[in-house]
């Protein structure tokens, strides 16, 4: 369900669809896609070190950045990892880094698709899921 969430969120952020605004969205997405892998590595390191506090913090940070752009697949997995870390059950989050890597790649594809539509002047909403 990543695609509709990303599409809907970016559509919501558009006020006038001007070139200036499209450039702003591109910059926002680029910033997220550049920083998210680093944040994911930090999370993975914290999980591997069984550092629950750091893991909760890193998961929360990535969750917030992903949710901000509608990448709900990523933010959902992060929320789970954060909950497990807070509950002292970090050992159950061992698979999360791999799952997050996939979700992030998927989100990247959808961002590219949405940005292409945006540059082409196609309407973002409504669009079939």
């Amino acid at each position, binding site marked *: 369900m990543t695609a509709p969430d990303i599409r809907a969120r970016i559509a919501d952020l558009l006020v006038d669809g001007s070139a200036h605004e499209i450039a*702003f969205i591109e910059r926002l997405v680029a910033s997220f896609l550049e920083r998210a892998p680093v944040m994911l590595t930090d999370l993975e390191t914290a999980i591997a070190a069984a550092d629950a506090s750091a893991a909760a913090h890193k998961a*929360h940070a990535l969750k*917030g950045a992903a949710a*901000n*752009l509608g990448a709900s697949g990523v933010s959902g997995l992060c*929320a789970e990892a954060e909950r497990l870390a807070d509950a002292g059950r970090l050992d159950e989050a061992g698979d999360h880094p791999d799952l997050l890597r996939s979700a992030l790649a998927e989100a990247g594809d959808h961002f590219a698709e949405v940005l292409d539509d945006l540059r082409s002047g196609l309407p973002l909403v409504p669009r079939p899921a």
Partner: protein
Amino acid sequence: MSNELTELWRRTSVLTGETPSVLLVDDEPTVLETLSHQLGTEYRVVTALDGMSALDALDRQGPFAVVISDMRMPDMDGIELLGHVRLRHPGLTRVLHTAQGDLASAIAAINNGQVFRFLCKPCPTRELRDTVRDAVEQHRLVSAEREILDKTLRASLQALFGCLELASPQAFARAGRIRDLVGALCRELGLNNVWEIEVAAMASQLGAVTLPPSVLEKLDRGLPLPEDEQKMIDAMPGIAARLLGEVPMLEDVVEIVSGLRPAGGAGQPALVAVDKPMVTVAVGVLRAAIEFEGFTSRGVTAENAIVAMGGQGDHDVAALAALRRIRGITTEQEEARAFRIGELEVGMRIAEDIVAVNGLVLIGRGISVTEMLLERLTNYKHIVELIEPVWAVVPAPTATRAAA
């Protein structure tokens, strides 16, 4: 983005002094950029990446109408931040923007931060704008109400102290001298809340209206008093506290005045609130000013008065040091001269009580000469004979002009 404040001046924004300011706080820079974009161009937006930077921005880049804070941030979470904001900037509308959708966070946000709204991440643009619009309106209403209350309070206090002036010019003049000294001490000590401390200084003398003229005269001259008369003086702060006790926004003033009561005096212990540092400091400053006024009224020099107060051992050391500094400057600059009533000019300060031949004090020393005071003196001259010359301090520029 570095961990510093960022002010986002966005496209085609036309910002004026009337433009409401919104402070956004989140440790995720892209969230700050997104929120700022969503808010459009109607607001001046300032962002901060953590709680400490946010508090700094509130102090240095305000005034703000609204603060929107993330919940989970390193060092200081959103609830703690909004709790600080509530104490330091109570008129600001507080909004929590959070991914923590749990009940415990909502309860803490309401109870500790007394938030206006609770926004869930990611917040749709319309909901964000509607919330900020409502929050700005809430701020406007609270500010307007506070302004009206503030004006009413100031005017009421002016009327109250005006009554003191009518009932006892001597007590009013003494209150004015103490207030001026307290104001100078506060500025010297770099204290905030000067207005409240000055009001407390004036209020501390309200009880003087209950004193028999002979006791008031001794108080005004700083003369020693027998035990029964000293009890009347000790009761003065309690009288003021009772008079002002129910007035809104004067809670700290009442606590300061109450703190002047001698321990065990007037049948009650002193009420200094130890958990309010401002009140404790203000009581120390005011006590020092009242004591100093007593000494100087008795004719003791400023230097000797401060030495004597230091010897008493119960005065605030910082207040005494500040007193020494400000009196050192003042005494060099001031010079009292004799004038006929008709020679007094606006801006001078009465150095000795202006007294009628029957002994009645009409204007207490320390009062500044205003147009209104000159008019009153002229009226008095038509009714009673005044003792002349009168002594007044000439401010430095006037003195230079007169010498030339």
